[in-house]
C-alpha cells in the first residue's frame, strides 16, 4: 500500500476511543433511520398485504337478525362478490380454574370450511371447531390463559354458564382491524349458538365487492344499495354500516403517521450526530496538524491531503454502516413484529428492505462527508507553518483585515459580565473563572455541542409535555366517563326498577338510564358519511361534565338536537353550530340540528350526545333503557371494578339479563394504554437524542482536555491538586449542560407545539390543547447535570492523571 493510504488506514485505528465515538455517532443516526425506514416500509407493505390476504370484507353491516334464506337473496346483489352472515355478540368467559371474567366478542360462523370473507389463519390445533367447541383469536390469550384442549366457561345473559372446549388458536387480521381496543374474539359454529341461549340467526353481513375493491366511493354506494335491499327487500333493519378498502389496513394512516413522527425524530438524530461528527473530525484534523504540515513540507498538495482525509471519513462511514446496517435491519424487523403483534397482522417474513438499505448507505456515507467537509477543507488548506507549529492558539477567533483578533459575541458578553462583577468589586475564584472561560474558548465546537445537547433536551422535554398533553386530553375525555359503573342489559328495563335494585347495593349514589341510538350520518347525496352513536343521558345529568368547544351542550327541551365530536368535521369541514345533518335512524331519514361541538376520542364511529327525554321516545323506550350509568361513593378503579362485579351479580341474581357491567374508567384505560405505547416510542427517540447529545459532550470535553494538556501542566506546576483539575473540567461540562438546559427550555416550547400537533392529528385526528408539565424540565435538568458530569469525568480523570513531565515534555 502506498504510504499515504497506509497512513489513512492506520489513522483509522490510531485513537480507539475517537474512532468509536465517530463510528458510533454515525451509527446511531444510521441505525435509527434504518430501523424506522425499514419498519415503515415493512409495515406499510405487510400490514395491508396481510390484511388483504385475508379477504377483508369491504362492507360490514350490523343488522337485526336474519336467516340463511334471506342471506341467499343477497348473493346476487349487484357487484357483490362474496357475502357471509355471522352472529356477533358480547359474552363473558373465564378459564375453568379462574374466577376472573373477561369480556369477549363471540362470533358464530356458518361454514368455516367455505369461509370466503374475513379469513381465519389457523395457528394451532383445529382450524374448524366442532359443536360446543371454540376457536380463540390469539389476542384472547393476552387476556386469559388457555391452551388447545382447555375448557372455557361462558356466562350467558341469564347468569347460567356453559363450557366450550378450545379447539384451536387462530388469527383474524381483518375483523375489528380498525379498533385494536375491541374485545378479543372467540369463534364458534352456528349450531353451538343454542347452547349459549342465542338464536341461530345472523346479525352481521360481511361482504366483498366484485369491482373497485379499493374505491371508497364505489364501496359506499354498493353498501348503501345492499343495506337498502335488506331494509326494503327483507325488512331487516341495518343499524350500522362500515366500509373498508381491500388493500389498505384501516389503521394504516394512523400507524404511518406515528412512524412519520418517529422518522422525523430519526432524521433529527442524524442531524445531531452529524454535528457530533463535525466536532470530532475538526478535533482530529487539529491533532493531525503536524502530520499535515509534514506532508505538505515534503511535497503534499491540498487536494492530496483533502483526498486522504475524505477517504478517512468514508472509512469511518463504512465502519459505521457495517455496524449499523445489520442492527438497523434487525431493529426494523423487531419493531415491525411488535407493531404487527399489537395490531394483529402477520409480517411476510424477515427481509432486507432495499429502500431502507439505500437510505442507510446514503446517511452513513453522505452525512459524515457533509459534516466533515468544512473541517477537512480547513485542515487541508492550512499553511505548513501553522501546521508544523501545531498552533492551536488560533482558537476560533476571527481576525479583521489588520490581522487583529475580533471579539466574538461570547467574549463581548463575557467582558461585559466581568466588568459588571468588577464594578461591584466581586472577584470570582480563579478556578471557577477558568472553567467559565474555557467553556467559551472553542466557539464552533461549543455551538455544535450546544446544538446537539439542546436539541436532545428540547425533544426530551417536548416528549414529556406531549405525554402530559395527551393524558390531559384523556382526562378531558374522562369528563364524559364520570359514571363509575356502566351496566348494560340484553333487553330494556324500566328505569325505576333498575334504580331501586341498584340502590340496594351499598355505595351506590346515583343511577341513570341512558338512551342509545346507532345512526348513520349521510352526505346530501344519501350515501354514508359516518357512523354515529348517540348517547342520551337525562338533561342536566351529573354523570358527564360536558365541555363544548363551540356552540352549546344539549339541554332539556331539545328535540332532534345533538352535540357532536369534532371528528364530524372530517366529513363536513364547514359544519357550524346551528347547522343540520341528515341522519338515518332505524331506517328512517331525519334531519338533526347540531347545537355544539366537543372533543372526544373517535374510534369506531363518532359520538354525539342528545337528551334522554327526546331519544328514549325516538327509540320507543321511554322510561326504559338497556344501558345504565351508576355513580358510586368512591371513584378509584379497583373500587369501580368491585362495584361492577357486585352489581353484575346482584342483577343477574335478580333475574336481569345483564350483558356486562364495566368499571367506568376501563374504557379510558384501554385508550391510555395505547397512548402509553406511543409515548414509550417517543421517549426512546428522546433518549436516543439525549444519548447523542451526551456523546457530543463527552467528545467535546475529551478534545478540550486533550488540547489543554499544557495548561493543565502549568496549573499543576503552580500547585493545583488532582481534585482541582477534575473539578475544573467537570464544572466546564456542567456549565455547558446548564446552558443547553436553558436553551432547551426555550426550544422545547415550539417543539412541544409541533409534536403535539402532529401526534394529536395522527392519534385523535384533531389538534388538541397543549399542556406543559415541569416534569420533563426537571427530569432533563437532573439528566443533563448527571450526563454532563459523567461526560466530563473520564476526560477529567485523564487530565488529572497527566503528570507535569508528560505535559511539558514538548519536543
Amino acid at each position: 500500500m502506498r504510504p499515504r493510504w497506509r497512513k489513512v488506514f492506520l489513522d483509522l485505528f490510531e485513537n480507539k476511543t475517537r474512532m468509536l465515538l465517530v463510528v458510533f455517532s454515525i451509527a446511531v443516526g444510521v441505525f435509527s433511520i434504518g430501523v424506522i425506514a425499514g419498519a415503515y416500509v415493512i409495515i406499510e407493505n405487510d400490514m395491508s398485504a396481510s390484511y388483504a390476504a385475508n379477504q377483508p370484507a369491504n362492507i360490514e353491516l350490523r343488522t337485526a337478525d336474519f336467516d340463511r334464506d334471506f342471506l341467499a337473496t343477497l348473493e346476487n346483489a349487484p357487484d357483490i362478490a362474496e357475502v357471509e352472515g355471522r352472529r356477533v355478540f358480547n359474552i363473558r368467559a373465564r378459564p375453568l380454574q379462574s374466577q376472573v371474567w373477561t369480556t369477549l366478542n363471540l362470533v358464530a360462523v356458518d361454514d368455516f370450511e367455505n369461509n370466503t370473507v374475513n379469513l381465519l389463519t389457523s395457528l394451532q390445533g383445529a382450524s374448524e371447531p366442532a359443536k360446543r367447541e371454540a376457536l380463540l383469536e390469539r389476542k384472547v390469550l393476552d387476556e386469559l390463559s388457555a391452551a388447545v384442549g382447555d375448557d372455557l366457561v361462558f356466562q350467558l345473559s341469564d347468569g347460567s354458564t356453559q363450557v366450550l372446549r378450545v379447539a384451536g388458536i387462530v388469527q383474524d387480521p381483518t375483523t375489528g382491524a380498525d379498533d385494536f381496543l375491541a374485545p378479543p374474539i372467540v369463534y364458534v359454529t352456528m349450531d353451538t349458538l343454542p347452547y349459549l341461549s342465542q338464536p341461530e340467526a345472523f346479525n352481521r353481513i360481511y361482504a366483498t365487492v366484485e369491482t373497485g375493491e379499493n374505491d371508497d366511493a364505489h364501496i359506499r354506494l354498493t353498501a348503501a344499495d345492499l343495506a337498502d335491499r335488506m331494509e326494503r327487500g327483507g325488512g331487516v333493519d341495518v343499524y350500522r354500516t362500515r366500509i373498508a378498502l381491500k388493500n389498505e389496513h384501516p389503521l394504516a394512516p394512523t400507524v404511518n403517521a406515528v412512524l412519520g413522527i418517529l422518522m422525523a425524530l430519526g432524521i433529527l438524530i442524524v442531524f445531531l450526530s452529524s454535528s457530533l461528527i463535525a466536532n470530532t473530525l475538526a478535533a482530529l484534523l487539529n491533532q493531525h496538524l503536524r502530520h499535515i504540515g509534514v506532508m505538505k513540507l515534503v511535497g503534499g498538495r491540498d487536494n492530496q491531503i483533502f483526498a486522504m482525509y475524505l477517504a478517512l471519513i468514508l472509512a469511518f462511514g463504512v465502519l459505521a454502516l457495517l455496524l449499523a446496517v445489520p442492527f438497523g435491519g434487525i431493529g426494523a424487523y423487531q419493531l415491525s413484529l411488535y407493531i404487527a403483534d399489537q395490531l394483529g397482522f402477520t409480517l411476510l417474513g424477515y427481509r432486507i428492505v432495499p429502500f431502507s438499505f439505500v437510505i442507510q448507505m446514503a446517511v452513513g456515507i453522505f452525512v459524515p462527508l457533509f459534516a466533515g467537509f468544512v473541517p477537512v477543507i480547513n485542515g487541508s488548506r492550512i499553511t505548513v507553518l501553522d501546521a508544523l507549529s501545531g498552533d492551536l492558539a488560533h482558537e476560533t477567533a476571527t481576525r479583521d483585515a489588520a490581522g487583529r483578533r475580533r471579539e466574538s459575541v461570547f467574549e463581548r458578553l463575557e467582558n461585559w459580565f466581568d466588568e459588571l462583577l468588577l464594578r461591584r468589586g466581586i472577584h470570582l475564584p480563579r478556578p471557577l473563572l477558568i472553567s467559565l472561560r474555557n467553556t467559551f474558548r472553542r466557539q464552533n465546537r461549543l455551538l455544535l455541542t450546544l446544538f446537539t445537547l439542546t436539541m436532545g433536551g428540547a425533544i426530551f422535554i417536548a416528549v414529556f409535555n406531549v405525554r402530559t398533553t395527551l393524558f390531559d386530553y384523556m382526562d378531558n375525555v374522562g369528563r364524559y366517563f364520570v359514571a363509575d359503573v356502566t351496566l348494560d342489559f340484553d333487553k330494556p328495563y324500566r328505569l325505576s326498577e333498575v334504580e331501586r335494585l341498584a340502590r340496594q347495593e351499598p355505595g351506590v349514589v346515583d343511577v341513570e338510564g341512558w338512551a342509545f341510538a346507532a345512526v348513520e350520518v349521510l352526505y346530501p347525496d344519501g350515501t354514508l358519511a359516518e357512523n354515529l352513536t348517540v348517547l342520551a343521558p337525562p338533561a342536566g345529568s351529573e354523570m358527564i361534565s360536558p365541555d363544548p368547544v363551540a356552540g352549546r351542550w344539549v339541554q332539556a327541551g331539545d328535540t332532534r338536537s345533538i352535540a357532536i365530536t369534532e371528528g364530524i368535521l372530517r366529513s363536513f369541514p364547514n359544519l357550524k353550530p346551528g347547522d343540520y345533518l341528515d341522519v338515518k335512524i332505524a331506517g328512517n331519514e331525519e334531519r338533526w340540528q347540531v347545537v355544539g361541538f366537543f372533543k372526544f376520542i373517535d374510534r369506531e364511529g363518532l359520538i354525539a350526545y342528545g337528551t334522554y327525554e327526546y331519544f328514549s321516545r325516538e327509540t320507543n323506550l321511554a322510561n326504559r333503557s338497556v344501558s345504565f350509568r351508576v355513580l358510586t361513593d368512591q371513584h378509584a378503579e379497583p373500587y369501580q371494578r368491585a362495584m361492577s362485579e357486585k352489581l353484575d351479580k346482584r342483577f343477574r341474581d335478580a333475574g336481569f339479563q345483564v350483558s356486562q357491567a364495566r368499571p367506568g374508567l376501563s374504557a379510558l384505560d384501554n385508550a391510555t394504554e395505547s397512548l402509553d405505547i406511543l409515548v414509550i416510542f417517543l421517549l426512546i427517540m428522546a433518549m436516543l437524542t439525549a444519548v447523542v447529545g451526551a456523546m457530543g459532550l463527552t467528545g467535546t470535553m475529551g478534545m478540550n482536555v486533550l488540547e489543554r494538556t499544557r495548561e493543565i501542566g502549568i496549573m499543576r506546576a503552580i500547585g493545583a491538586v488532582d481534585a482541582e483539575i477534575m473539578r475544573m473540567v467537570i464544572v466546564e461540562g456542567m456549565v455547558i449542560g446548564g446552558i443547553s438546559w436553558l436553551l432547551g427550555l426555550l426550544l422545547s416550547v415550539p417543539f412541544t407545539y409541533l409534536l403535539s400537533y402532529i401526534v394529536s392529528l395522527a392519534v385523535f385526528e384533531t389538534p388538541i390543547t397543549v399542556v406543559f408539565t415541569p416534569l420533563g424540565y426537571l427530569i432533563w435538568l437532573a439528566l443533563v447535570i448527571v450526563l454532563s458530569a459523567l461526560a466530563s469525568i473520564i476526560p477529567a480523570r485523564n487530565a488529572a492523571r497527566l503528570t507535569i513531565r508528560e505535559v511539558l515534555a514538548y519536543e
Partner: protein
Amino acid sequence: MTPAPQNLPPVSPAAPPPAMIDLRRVVKKFKNAAGEFTVLKGIELHIGRGEFVSIVGKSGSGKSTLLNMITGIDHPTSGQVIVNGQDLYTSLNESGRSLWRGRNLGIVFQFFQLLPMLSLLENVMLPMDYAGLYDFDERPRRARQLLGMVGLEQHAHKLPMSVSTGQQQLAAIARALATDPPLLVADEPTGNLDSRSADTIIELFTSLAAQGKTVIMVTHDPSLTERTNRNIIISDGELIADAVALALPLLSHRQMLQVTRQTQPHTFAPGQAILLRDAEVDTFFIIEEGEVEIVLQGKNRADATVARLGRGQYFGEVELLRGGKSIASVRASSTSPVRLLGLPRAAFLATLKESPLTEEAIARSVQSRLQENRAQDRRSVVDALSGTIKKALRRSS
C-alpha cells in the same frame, strides 16, 4: 476561606537546614522502545539559601531532568531529593507534590507560561487560590503589588496574548512569587526574549536573590551565567566540577566532564606547602576552594609572595608544558584550608591536544606568568632578606 498566615510556616520547626536543595546520588533512567537511558548518573548537588545559580547544559545533557527532580515534576529512579527540608519523593504523592510546589516553589518556564483565558492579574492570583494562602480579598491586592514590582501594573487586566512575550515572562515571574515561595526555578526564562527584556529579568532575579530567595535558572546563554553566583554545568547526566568549568572555560562540556572525571581531590591545611620550587611537577592543579599563594624564593633571599590564586584558578601548567621543575613554590594560604583538583600530566596534555582553543589560552597564561615571574624575580632581589619563610619551607620539605 480560613485566614492564611502572612508568611509560610517554617517547614521544620527547628533552625532551617542550611541547604535549600540537597540532591543525594540521584539517578534517573528512562525506558523507551529503543532501550534504557540513564539520564542522571548519581547527581550530588547542594545549593544554599539565597544563592542565584545557573544551570547550563546542552540539549540531551539531562538539565531538564535535573530541574524536574528539583521541582518534583519527575521522580528519580534512585537517590534522594530534599528541597527546603522536604523529602519530595518518599513522603509525597503526585498531588501532594503539586500542593507542596504551590507553597514552596515558583516555577518560570520558557514557553506556555500563562493561562491564556485569565488576565495577568488573575494568573498571578491563581497560585494563591490553589494553595489557599492569603485572604480571598487580600489576593487581588497582593497580585497587584507583585505586578507592580515587575512593572506591569497598568496591564493587570489584559489577557496574556495582548502583551509582549517579555511582559508575559515578567508576569510569569510575578506569578511564581505569588505564594512567597523561598525557591524560584526558571527554565530558560530568557530563551525567546530580546536582549533588553532578558536583562530586566536577570536584574529581577539578582535582586530577589539579594532578598534571600534562592533562584535557580537554566540557560544556555554564557552571558547570563556570568551574572549568577554560581554556574552548574551538566553534561551527559553528570555535573562538571565548578572549578574545572571556571579554569578551562573553552573546553567543550564533554571535555570538561572528562577532566572532572580524571581529577583527584586534594586538601591542604592553612599554610601547608603544596609544591616546592624545583620539585618535579606531574599534576595540573585547579583550585576548588580556598586560596593558594605562589611564592618565589631567590637563593639566600627571603620568600616573596608573587600571586594569590583563588577558586577556579590553576597552577602547574607552566611546568607541564615547558617541562622541567617547578618555577615557584605554592602553599595553602594561611587563613583557610585549600581544596584542589589534580589532573595528571598525561590527561592534561591529552586535553590540550583535544582543545586547541584551551591550549592557546593556557599558552597565553604561561607566557604572562613567566613574564610576571621574571619581573618579580628582579623585584625580589631588593627585598630578599627575610629568612623566616625559607625556614618554614625547609621544615615542610
